[in-house]
């Protein structure tokens, strides 16, 4: 096998528990975004657009949707004779076997995969962010500085910097200091969790820290290298970069696409985002429909009112139904006369006729106030919601629910119904 200058390792095994029931049965990178994409499409498309044709995707949590989405990489032109995309799940060995216990541990367990390509550089990516970025430009920067490690960093408003891992650089952009979620940040450059390592540096650090439990890049590998005075540089990125790790930020990032001229533009020919396309047919907007301020995927059939919403492929909105300020993923079906406001509804969910979702007053979540705090109704995939029920704000539902699950035909604000394991 001929060697590759740079290969990418994409960490896609995380659950993303802050997305609540959206990630009940899919890994976070497989969560739908922007009416047709999945989050992982952004780093994968960035790779191929940057000329990186060898990508290892590390999976662990709920990999089924992710596996079938990635396949052999055809949508991203990553079906290659030499290289291409490889899905790398944890595996059993003769002496021991373990799950991936941390970001760096996962990469360590795949040392042989990387060695197979004899790379000069390894790019570490995560499947958590929406952005377009040229990794080749970052590699040029890495080479120019003769760096051991380059960390992509984005300027954030200083008042928000305390939510991030912050890097403090000298005038040559060499990183002198790291601060993890500092109370009084000394810099506004936040680490994006994107690293380029010179291969020997990565290999040696992974091997040296192989017995570190839950070995993590931010917590262990980078500090280890920093202590040894290696050349660590910050590559400043000034484009659009959006974390979609919480229900609030996920909802917001989708809603921003609806803006008249969105900051993150998916309509450009340059730097296309590729995805596995399950539907190609056009959408039908019927004579009873009203659609404005919306993004709607292929094959949808709209007969009701849709405003301020992002709808995935194959969504059906029946006559008289109203959908406002919501995200409906592929195949969601909204019955006649239903009302949906400020909801995130995952793939394949059926909402019965005349059901009202997102009504009443806000109440704190009884399920998990840290996850569910954004005044959104969150409904997991392949959920069934019966006809004529009323669902309050800040609620969570997953599973096949029946009228008997709703006392007095209502689910109060802040309440939840999780019927995991009961889907067919």
């Amino acid at each position, binding site marked *: 096998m001929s060697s590759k200058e740079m290969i990418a390792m994409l960490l896609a095994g995380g659950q993303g528990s802050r997305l609540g029931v959206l990630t009940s049965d899919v890994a976070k990178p497989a969560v739908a975004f922007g009416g047709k994409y999945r989050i992982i499409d952004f780093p994968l498309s960035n790779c191929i657009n940057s000329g990186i044709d060898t990508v290892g995707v590390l999976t662990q949590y709920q990999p089924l949707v992710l596996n079938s989405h990635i396949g052999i990489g055809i949508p991203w032109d990553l079906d290659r004779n030499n290289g291409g995309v490889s899905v790398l799940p944890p595996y059993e060995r003769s002496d021991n076997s373990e799950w991936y216990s941390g970001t760096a541990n996962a990469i360590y367990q795949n040392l042989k995969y990387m060695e197979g390509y004899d790379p000069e550089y390894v790019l570490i990516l995560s499947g958590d962010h929406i952005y377009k970025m040229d990794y080749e430009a970052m590699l040029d920067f890495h080479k120019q500085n003769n760096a051991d490690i380059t960390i992509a960093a984005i300027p954030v408003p200083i008042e928000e910097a305390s939510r991030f891992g912050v890097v403090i650089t000298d005038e040559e952009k060499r990183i002198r200091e790291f601060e993890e979620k500092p109370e009084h940040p000394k810099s506004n450059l936040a680490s994006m969790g994107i690293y380029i390592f010179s291969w020997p540096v990565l290999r040696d650090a992974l091997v040296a820290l192989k017995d570190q439990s839950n070995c993590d890049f931010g917590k262990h590998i980078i500090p280890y290298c920093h202590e040894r005075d290696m050349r660590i540089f910050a590559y400043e990125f000034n484009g659009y970069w959006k974390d979609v790790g919480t229900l609030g930020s996920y909802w917001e990032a989708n809603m921003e696409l609806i803006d008249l001229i969105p900051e993150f533009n998916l309509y450009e020919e340059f730097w296309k985002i590729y995805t596995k396309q399950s539907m190609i047919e*056009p*959408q039908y907007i019927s004579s009873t429909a009203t659609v404005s301020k919306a993004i709607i*995927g292929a094959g949808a059939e709209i007969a009701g009112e849709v405003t301020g919403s992002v709808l995935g492929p194959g969504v059906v909105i029946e006559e008289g139904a109203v959908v406002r300020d919501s995200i409906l993923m592929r195949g969601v079906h909204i019955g006649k006369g239903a009302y949906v406001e400020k909801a995130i509804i995952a793939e394949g969910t059926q909402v019965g006729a005349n059901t009202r979702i997102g009504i009443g007053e806000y109440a704190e979540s009884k399920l998990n106030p840290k996850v569910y705090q954004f005044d959104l109704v969150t409904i997991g995939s392949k959920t069934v919601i019966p006809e004529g029920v009323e669902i309050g704000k800040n609620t969570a539902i997953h599973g096949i629910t029946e009228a008997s699950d709703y006392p007095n035909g209502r689910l109060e604000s802040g309440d939840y119904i999780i019927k995991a394991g009961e889907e067919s």
Partner: protein
Amino acid sequence: MKALGIILAGGNSSRMQNLSDKRAISAMPIGGSYRSIDFTLSNMTNSHIQTVAVLSQYNARSLNEHLNSSKWWNFGRKQGGLFLFTPTVTANNSWWYRGTADAMWQNIDFLKKRHEPYVIIASGDCVYKLDFNKVMDYHIAKQSNITVVCAKVPDYDDVGRFGVVKMDHDGQIMDFEEKPMVAHSDIVSTGIYVIRRRTLIELLEQCNKEGRYNFVTDVLIRYKGMQKIYGYMLEGYWSNIASVKSYYQTNMNFLKPEVRDYFFRQEPKIYSKAYDLAPAKFNAGSNVKNSLIASSCIINSQVENSILFKKVFVGNNCVIKNSIILNGAYIGDNVYVENCIVESDETLLSNTSYIGKDEIKIVAENHNRYGI
């Protein structure tokens, strides 16, 4: 595999008016997301035909672009593949394709090298679904030499564009009239034929020796006494798009729920090239009724009873009515469009109006996009 496919996609027709200036008929956009040839290609792949030759010569650029990868239709396997044959100059031939039979004759080496016992010949200008295995079963059961797939013409006024067929009670074709002035039947040939590969090779070689080039007049009609020719009735939806009127009607038919259900929802599906476009966007002010909207359209105003193909932009305060807007058209502000077909990549300047009065108007003005 029992059959290989040949798609005769070379055609042009004056009935398409200036729509065919830009492309061969088989590359005409259909139903918002497809091109005409997708239907035959998908039917072939769905019938497990693995080898398909597309014969084309008229303005094949669009078609070439569309067929740039065979993977969209699941061809391109080790067994079989999708081949595009345009005329080439060889040691003993420097002609264009002089007719449908000649087009096949010029590629006779391809036919000779294959091993499939049957050939399905089809055109690229029809919208339909068909399981070719059923036609082959019929062909074999009837011990037919050539089987012609026939259909009832959807619009009787249109019958003069077709080969009109008269069958006996058993389905054998007794009479075949090509494009008659007065038709005696509303059963027409769909341009789809099943024939044994060896028989086809013999007939093509005989034709060429006699200086004859057309499959319908020189083979079908001439041999109808000598060969057993049967008609197979295609019962489902079928429509030929090779005139402006039928092209418009075929597209508009996709606004009917039963037609959408048949092609968009029911298996087997119709495949097409993937373009990786963003979803359609509806801005404030958009008001869309009874219309099909393809990916990456951006709509700012009123669209009614229309079909918008991919990447169409509709500006502010426009009215688009009963129209077909082809790929990539840009419609400025305050534009009124009714009963029109707007050519692909057209730019309609702001404050203009285009109305098809008695018939469908084709809008092809080639304005400079960057001048606005």
